[in-house]
């Protein structure tokens, strides 16, 4: 488990991360979303022990990360612009990481290189940006560390490769309890992979929630009622986050389980009622609008 407790980091007079507290459980895929400059990379770099927090602490399995080799052995950090040695080939990087990470899986590395149609002996500086991303993910996966920190890892990958990477992540999650922490400015990229999402904005954390809980606790329904007084009764009873009206068709986004919400509506004998699927994006819009933020401006 990774725990960040009131972590702050300032660069000169810019507060990059301000009093962030978050808990990342093992076996979860944690998504860290936010705009550019929100503090995602700084937070990840602090989690990786690259930066030392000005205040607060980050504990990885109970250990402080900064300058702690034992803690660092438990994660692999993929930066947004991963460094490879000049003139190195994937094979060189494999050998290097092999000497650094005890459980580095050489066979898996070679296999994944083949799967991604990369060459073991081609110089990395001739790779495209996407190929370098793929290689860094392969290195990270094969390091066989407990945690994998990815900073904008899907940025630059084409949809096919993105899907391939996601499926590798999924496989790793099922085969061994790997815990990826993925930072991205694009919420849609994380939607189908994350279990838990933390939303960062201007160095602070706006919310940190389990996606399943979020999906179960917010629902969107469309309904038509016979009379206006029934509409008012329903709206009073529902824990309403958002309401839209087109003629007599009402669309509600409300907190509560699917059963609870439909029961409230069914009691008023509607002409039509239908529960609509809610995207992660919509959940975030609803959640953040409540606290006064226009999420569309932040992450979409």
């Amino acid at each position: 488990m990774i725990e960040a407790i009131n972590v702050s980091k300032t660069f000169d007079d810019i507060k990059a991360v301000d009093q962030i507290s978050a808990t990342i459980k093992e076996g979860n895929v944690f998504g860290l979303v936010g705009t550019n400059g929100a503090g995602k990379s700084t937070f990840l770099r602090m989690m990786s022990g690259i930066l030392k927090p000005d205040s607060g602490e980050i504990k990885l399995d109970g250990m402080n990360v900064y300058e702690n080799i034992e803690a660092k052995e438990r994660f692999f950090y993929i930066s947004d612009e991963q460094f490879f040695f000049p003139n190195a080939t994937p094979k060189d990087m494999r050998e290097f990481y092999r000497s650094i990470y005890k459980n580095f899986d050489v066979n898996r590395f070679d296999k994944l290189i083949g799967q991604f149609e990369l060459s073991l002996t081609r110089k990395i500086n001739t790779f495209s940006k996407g190929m370098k991303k793929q290689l860094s993910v392969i290195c990270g996966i094969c390091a066989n560390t407990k945690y994998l920190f990815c900073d904008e890892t899907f940025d630059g990958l084409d949809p096919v490769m993105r899907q391939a990477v996601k499926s590798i992540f999924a496989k790793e999650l099922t085969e061994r309890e790997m815990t990826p922490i993925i930072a991205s400015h694009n919420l849609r990229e994380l939607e189908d992979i994350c279990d838990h999402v933390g939303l960062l904005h201007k160095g602070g954390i706006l919310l940190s929630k389990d996606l399943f809980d979020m999906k179960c606790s917010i629902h969107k329904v469309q309904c038509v009622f016979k009379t206006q007084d029934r509409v008012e009764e329903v709206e009073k009873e529902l824990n309403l986050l958002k309401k839209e009206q087109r003629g007599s068709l009402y669309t509600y986004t409300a907190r509560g389980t699917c059963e609870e919400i439909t029961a409230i509506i069914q009691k008023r004998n509607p002409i039509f009622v239908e529960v609509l699927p809610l995207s992660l994006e919509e959940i975030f819009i609803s959640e953040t609008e409540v606290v006064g933020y226009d999420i569309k401006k932040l992450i979409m």
Partner: protein
Amino acid sequence: MTSRNLLCRLMREDVKRRLWAIAISFVAFLFAIPVYTATSVERVVNMFKQGQALGDRHEYLSNTAMYCLGVGNSALVLLTIILAILCGISGFYYLHSKKKVDFYHSLPVKRESLFSSIYIIGIAIYVIPYLVSLAIGFVIVGTNGAFGSNVWIEAWKAFGVNLLNYCLTYTVVIIAVLLTGQLIVSILASGVFLAYGPVVAVLIGSLKDTYFETYYEYGSITESFLFRCSPISAYFNMTNAVYEKTLSFAITLIYIAVTMVLVILAVFLYRKRSSEAAGKAISYQVLQPYIKIVVSVPIGLWSGIIFTSLMNANSSFWLIFGMVCGYLLCSCIMEIIYHFDFKAAFKSRGSLLVGAVLMFAIFSMFKWDLLQYDKYIPSKDKIESMSVALSGIDNNLEFRVYNEDNSRYKISYMDRIGYAFEYMNLKDKDAAYEIAKMAVEGEAVLNEGEIDSDSDYDKYMTIHVQYRLNSGRHIYRSYAIAVEPYFDLLNQLYQNKEYKEGAFPIYTMKEVTNVTCYSEFQKLSITLTEEEKAQLLSLYRDELLALSLEDVRNEVPLATIDFGYTTDENDVLSYSALVYPSFTRTIDFLSMHGFDFTKTFNLADIMNVSIDYRIPQYAHEEEQYIAYMKENPEWTYDKSVMYKDGDTISEILPYLFNNSYAWNNGILTNYDPNVTVTVTWKTDEYGNVTSNQYAIVSNNIPDFVKEDIMYAETSK
């Protein structure tokens, strides 16, 4: 994975990263050692083949080999410095890239391991090519028959010295890289670290020279320490010491200790360096104002000095103007570099003000002598001994010393002051101390800008004084004093045995192998037995001890004795000793061995005597000269007269004496340098004409001559 394996792995990666540096190192060493040795040895071999060289072939060759493989090879020194800078910057340059820092610092590797791997590779890039080249060099030397244990020892000694100094410079450059976050700033910081000490030392020397009347630069402890603060000047000092065979074990240990302390400091800085320092000008922001002050203040002071010298404006106003401009410019540039923003030029006003105050405080300290440098004289009871070098007296002396230097005798050439400071040990210091005390109190001293006319220079002499204190400290001062008010004290000092022994190199002569005596009219190589040579030397030394300044002022030397000594290496060492008329026993001895002191000009042989007079500047406004100049515009300020008549010439000849004798004690001898007498002899049987120039004592210039040359009586 064990930490040793990890270290090897990291080192291997670093080697791959720095292949270019390794290639440069190999190629450069190849040229600096094997190629240089091969060409040098071949040249010597060819010289012997063509008969251009004589002597022991093996010795000649091994000396050449020792030079090429030893500390004498200056290409190795240059290469060592260049490689140290190159490896220091290239090894730790990654710290300036956020991408690389993220990579290295996220790895489960201790920072110490990372530092060690890079540091060791930096050393290996130097050592391995050096050793390989040295091995090839040994093969070249061996195959040419130049090898010997001395070559072997010299080569390894040079290797040790070069390696030690490489480590020192390399570590200093690494510290510069660790303290900065940009390549350009790193290079500038390296330059500052490598040159700061000497630059500040020269600045202090220059300020002392400009503002202190009594300053004399001779091995100031502070300044020599500052000089050694630079790894490069320390390196040159060490190689010189090895070359001169004066390097002590203690000094070597100090070098090693300093290097180790610097390595520890570098590790500390590396550990403490935050990753976010990448890309910043200075990695430790807290140091920024201090670095700015430490760099800007000397640059400001230097600017003042340079500005006045360039503008040829010697006033304090322009010096301060230059100082302020240089200081502001440097401070602003540093702030711009710190923030990478032109608008930030005046951002840290506090440090700007502190630096300015410090700079003016330092300037004031020198300008108004706040520390009373010129007024300082150690109290007499604290002085163990003194040395004094007098200028303007005994100018013809040459200071050559034949000394044993690390089991090897050699001739050292020194100057008057260095010789006196080394060989004079005045325990009886009353006269010397009194002279210095009077000078410090400002009695009849000449300060800058106090010269009335060109002739004033002739009335003053500079004395350089060394005070050796009981504490072991040495203090050096120079005083420009008027001769006459100090004459009695100077005379007292001159008759001091310790003064003579420390001022005349003849007292260091151990043995005489040949004696030559010459004057205007005779030159004689005198054949003497060993005992006679020793007797003459002893006689001369005794009579020289008795010579007073009064004698020097009143007497004109009659002849010169060359005491010669031929060393085992066939080097000739000779001391010229003037024979004054009061040296009666010496004169008798030389007369007994064939030297004729009675010889003088033969009037019958002389064709003419011409007298040239340079009218002194102070007389230019006198009526007679104005009239003369109008009549003779082509001879402005010069008046020449030629005498052909024997009677007239005979009135002049008795007062002529050798120009070099006049120059020898010019400040005391009462001759006028504006008057030059040229004697021309009659054409000889081969049709040749000989002329010689002489001086004449002012009081002895005949009246008719004075009249003819329009002699200015006020002169001298």
